[in-house]
């Protein structure tokens, strides 16, 4: 019990658990796991409502688009199963293209409230983690290392606020974060995600080494 709840997990256990989570999210939600996307949906709640209304009114167009697409596919490739079943054994490349267009056409599928529930789950999960470790209670610092780099006063809080803005702005600009690009995207060997992950990981390493050299 001590090794599960108190000590940090060994790399293989953590890695297996994280990959299980990545796959489980995909399996249950039907979309790749991504936390900054959830943030964006929740923060942009108001604009979201408008977008959902617009999407609802576009529903018919979308159906027409899918029908036209299926018809065109059928015409070009002949005996393909026109229902667009996911387990279709037809030409894989064609399937891929059709699925991609379908995904784009369907756009956002997870309701905003679902993303909000997910974010609340993260908070409660952290709470459970702290309970397990027997560390329940408020802490005014992020730990010894943070203290030694930034101190504990207004400078530390300002750094967190500015850093937070960089995290929010940067992940939105890049279209994903550690989970969306790093876990989900890299697992798909998607070039855009590999690029983004190299960019944020490389920069984090450079800045951390710089901090280490300058501040401590």
């Amino acid at each position, binding site marked *: 019990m001590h090794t599960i709840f108190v000590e940090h997990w060994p790399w293989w256990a953590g890695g*297996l658990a*994280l990959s299980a*989570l990545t796959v489980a999210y995909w399996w249950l939600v039907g979309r790749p796991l991504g936390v900054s996307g959830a943030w964006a949906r929740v923060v942009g709640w108001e604009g979201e409502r408008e977008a959902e209304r617009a999407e609802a009114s576009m529903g018919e167009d979308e159906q027409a688009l899918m029908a036209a697409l299926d018809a065109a596919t059928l015409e070009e490739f002949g005996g393909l199963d026109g229902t667009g079943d996911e387990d279709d054994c037809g030409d894989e490349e064609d399937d891929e293209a059709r699925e991609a267009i379908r995904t784009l056409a369907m756009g956002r599928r997870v309701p905003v409230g679902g993303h909000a529930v997910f974010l609340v789950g993260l908070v409660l999960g952290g709470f459970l983690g702290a309970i397990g470790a027997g560390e329940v209670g408020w802490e005014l610092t992020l*730990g010894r290392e943070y203290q030694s780099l930034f101190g504990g006063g207004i400078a530390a809080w300002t750094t967190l606020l500015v850093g937070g*803005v960089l995290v929010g702005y940067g992940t*939105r600009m890049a279209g994903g974060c550690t989970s969306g690009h790093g876990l989900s995207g*890299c697992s798909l060997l998607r070039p855009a*995600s590999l*690029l983004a992950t190299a960019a944020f990981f490389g920069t984090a390493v450079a800045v951390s080494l710089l901090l280490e050299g300058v501040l401590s």
Partner: protein
Amino acid sequence: MSRTYVSLGLLGLAMGFLLSRIGFSDFGEVHRMFTFADLRMLLTFATAVAVSAGVLAVLRARRHAPVIPVHWSQIVGGCLFGAGWALTGACPSIALVQLGEGRIPALATTAGIVAGTALYARIESRLGWRRVEACGA
């Protein structure tokens, strides 16, 4: 519909607990990962990607994934995020996990993330281009 909410709630709960137990929400651990003082979390992440890649390949998940063209915004945005991650020890999920753990400074990080996300949404609408979402949104 309600199944989606329950799934997302449980997934969030599992992820929060997991990140906390791995040590991802611990600034010191993250800092040691970025300075290569401790390779444990680097290996954790590499293992997670390698195993997921294998499973997703078997499931042929790529067919159902959003298509994301390579764009310069992924590099610039990634660099901004990386700098923020090094300064705060937090990626978007971690600030919330830290709040759950009772780490009060995470309030500042969370406020920053909300502000940064909202700021980008405002700016993008004036840029005339849109990057494609990698996440499950």
